């Protein structure tokens, strides 16, 4: 029997204008996007195309025209069902690793023993046991990002919104974190919407990639990615399958970037 399942996230006709010193700027124009439960969707596109803006609208942090619905219901602002992770980590510098992760749990009103259980489990998941009393200032970029992810996971949101999460990390750390994220996703099967400028990363992690046009942003093309995630990174990255998808996506993004460049030259 066909079971028609509602998409987890539905974005319909979202437009966003914001004010700038040179007058109003249209960041998004009539964007449509659907994300199904358990999917890992990446949004790629040229710089400044509005992909982060779209993510913030889905997160409920920015108001916009159009509809955004989660589980069929329109969103009314930020919510604990949509966790967010930023490129700059946004860890509260005045709190320790432990307290950062526990932040959402305290807001939830959980008893201390409950909180402790969840925090120590997550600290184990991200592999930072022993660092609970450290401050963000004392951590490396990769460690900070792990704490940021753990903090978001603490509230167990159904949806994870990732805004260029590994953009601030060096190449090696980035690869390690990508594998971490993949592992966590395969375990928890959350719905993930990720914004990234790194096409290779998008192909490596997602099962669907949406290419956004240059500003004002719209989803121009979509690519389905079906790779055997059982294979190791080394194998995968040199495989023909991987590279063929990667090249197609990359060319699509490049087309958009060039179009944006031309437009800038004209204006």
């Amino acid at each position, binding site marked *: 029997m066909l079971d028609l399942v509602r998409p987890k996230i539905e974005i319909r006709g979202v437009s966003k204008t914001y004010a700038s010193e040179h007058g109003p700027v249209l960041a998004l124009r009539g964007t449509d996007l659907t994300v199904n439960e358990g999917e890992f969707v990446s949004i790629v596109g040229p710089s400044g195309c509005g992909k982060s803006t779209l993510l913030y609208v889905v997160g409920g*942090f920015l108001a916009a025209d159009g509809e955004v619905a989660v589980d069929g219901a329109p969103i009314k602002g*930020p919510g604990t069902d949509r966790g967010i992770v*930023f490129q700059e980590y946004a860890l509260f510098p005045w709190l320790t690793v432990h307290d950062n992760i526990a932040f959402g749990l305290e807001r939830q009103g959980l008893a201390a023993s409950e909180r402790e259980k969840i925090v120590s489990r997550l600290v184990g998941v991200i592999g930072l046991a022993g660092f609970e009393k450290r*401050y963000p*200032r004392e951590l490396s970029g990769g460690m900070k990002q792990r704490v940021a992810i753990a903090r*978001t996971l603490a*509230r167990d949101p159904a949806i994870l919104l990732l805004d260029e999460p590994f953009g601030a990390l060096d190449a090696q750390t980035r690869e390690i974190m990508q594998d971490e994220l993949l592992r966590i996703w395969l375990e928890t099967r959350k719905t993930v919407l990720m914004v990234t400028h790194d096409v290779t990363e998008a192909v490596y992690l997602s099962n669907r990639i949406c290419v956004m046009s240059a500003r004002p942003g719209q989803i121009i093309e979509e690519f389905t990615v079906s790779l055997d995630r059982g294979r190791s990174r080394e194998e995968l990255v040199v495989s023909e399958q991987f590279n063929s998808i990667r090249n197609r996506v990359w060319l699509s993004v490049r087309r958009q970037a060039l179009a944006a460049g031309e437009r800038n030259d004209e204006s």
Partner: protein
Amino acid sequence: MNQLEVRTDGFAWRSAVSILLFIALWEIAARIHVAPAILLPPFSIVAAQLWHSTLDGTLAADLSLSLARAFCGLLLATAGGVVLGLLMARNRTIEWLVDPLVALGFPSPKIAFIPIFILWFGIESLSKILLVTFACIFPVIIGTYGAARAVSRQFIWSALSLGSNRFSVFLHVILPACFPRIFTTFRIVVPVGLITTFTAEMVAGGGGMGATLIYSQRFFESPTVFAYIVVMLAVGLVVDAVMRRFQSRFLRWAEG
């Protein structure tokens, strides 16, 4: 302000040597009468006067009075300034109302207002306390406002998506995020509070370090003049050291 903490090894040693050298030169210069004793009493005489004033309690009375006034004024300035700064950051109308007052008040020499405060509040402590509040509140407002407006929206958004309501965002994000900047402003403003207290006492009398200082000058009691200046210097140093300790203890998490 304290970029001069260019600490090299033996910094404490070198300061001690400088100070001792300075005192030695002072003593010698005074003794050989480089200037009349009225203008340059020897260090030893000044030290004796200092000891005398401590013993008979005048120094303690003056110092505690001045410090109490400065402290109260600073407390009011900080509380009022932080509240106003935060309100201004949140509410456009309040910002609109307070902005020109701050713009006018910040660069003006608040000392010029001493006679108004004396007129309204007399020559005892109240006028000094309120003058200190008036003198110190503007930098606090500006600093708090700047800090509140600069709180990264990513902090706020993270907190919201972790289940914070508006009040929790204020309490758990905005306040802690602003605290380092507010404290730095406070550090800058404390000397201003001390100066204002001393100056107000010099101008208006009514007891305290400044009053005694100016009386001594009028009656040419130069050892007292020198002694009180030394005490004021010491007070400034101690207060600054205390604040530095506080900062390194509680604000370790703030970068830079």
